[in-house]
């Protein structure tokens, strides 16, 4: 959605147009969910956080001035709620991936190709073993494709800090995954 259209949509929401709000939700819901999941590593929590973020947006859209993009503002809410949830849980939130028990999800490699699934599991685990801020930067910048500037706004840190965390996070992941054959991953 072009920025001008999005601004117009936001104005409609401010004027009380529910349909415009619904369009905004549908536009951003998956990315909000992905970001939340990146932090909490749990579908139920990701759902709660993503939905709660949109509720917060609805409550305070009157205060949204548009200094940053709507997406950046929304994802900052998502990131804040996710970090709060993590603080409450005080867990490193390892994702429990059991290859034998989990049914193959749609979009995964073919059922017989366990090697691919193993690699995927290790990559995800390496990500979730990163310190929170490094993980946040990798999720936002590398996996969700947000710009360094957007990530710095979302996490309220300098662009230099974002670059440093990204560099360190990706280096740690490479190091943890170094046992995997080079032709497969690194």
């Amino acid at each position: 959605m072009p920025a001008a259209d999005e601004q117009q949509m936001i104005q409609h929401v401010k004027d009380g147009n529910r349909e415009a709000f619904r369009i905004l939700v549908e536009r951003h819901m998956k990315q909000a969910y992905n970001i939340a999941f990146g932090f909490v590593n749990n579908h139920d929590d990701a759902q709660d956080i993503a939905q709660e973020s949109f509720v917060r947006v609805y409550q305070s859209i009157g205060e949204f001035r548009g200094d940053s993009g709507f997406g950046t503002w929304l994802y900052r809410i998502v990131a804040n709620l996710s970090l709060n949830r993590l603080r409450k849980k005080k867990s490193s939130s390892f994702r429990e991936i059991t290859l034998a028990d989990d049914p193959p999800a749609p979009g995964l490699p073919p059922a017989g190709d366990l090697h691919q699934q193993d690699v995927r599991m290790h990559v995800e685990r390496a990500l979730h073993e990163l310190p929170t801020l490094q993980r946040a930067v990798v999720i936002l910048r590398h996996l969700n494709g947000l710009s360094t500037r957007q990530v710095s706004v979302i996490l309220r840190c300098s662009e230099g800090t974002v670059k440093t965390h990204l560099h360190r996070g990706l280096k740690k992941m490479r190091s943890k995954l170094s046992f995997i054959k080079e032709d497969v991953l690194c």
Partner: protein
Amino acid sequence: MLMHTEIKIQMYDYLKGELTGGEAAKVRRHVDSCRECASELSELENFIERSASFFMNPSEERPSAYWENFATEVERKIQPLDQTGKRYSRTLLEDILFFLIPKRISPYAFSAAMALLVAALTFWKLASPPLHKEVKQIPAVQVISPNPDERVGQYLRKSRALLVGISNFKAERGQPRDMSAERKISRQLVHEARYLKHQPMDLRSAELIGDMEKILIKLANLREKNDVPDVELIRSGIHQDNLLFKIRMAEARYDTGRYIALEQDILKGY
């Protein structure tokens, strides 16, 4: 060493093509002359390319039906906010109410109370006599003593007869009843009421004619065939407004007025 670190933290942006021309040239120059950084850049490039294919967006693990309902779920969560009046933007009136009303009182209740207050003040202003006789005021409805207006009397009598008939209406099962006569009389009485409303009249009679007009319009709009549910509604309206009693009282006022007028005529020597 500082140079290596500076270059390394720029590598991701360099590979994504997001550095300025000068910054990119600086990274390129350094990498061309530094084996360690060149190796690091190559590893990072490989990792970025390959790792992305192993990450599946968690949203893709949810079925499409889940995403179809997502926005509806969010709307369900924001509905209670709307009901409690907690919204994102307020009108000027809402802003005023926000400061005037204690939070425990609903704005709707406050608005209703204000409307009642205004109505009561208006009624009081109309019903009470003017305080200063020398100040000439034009009342909304000219308040006069009961006037033996034969036309009003006829209107009241006809209306009473019609409403008594409707009030005693009993629907017989499976027997459609022709209401055309009632509808015709109602239409005539509505026309008459519209004429009378513009004539000088006491306040209570004016109100009564207004109330009856609503009932008569409903009667005039009844369907041709047996319209039992609507007739029942009209009957309940007649009873609820106590219309028959009010009509009798108005008729009595007009009769008394006529008697007084006759008495005055006698005293004048007619």
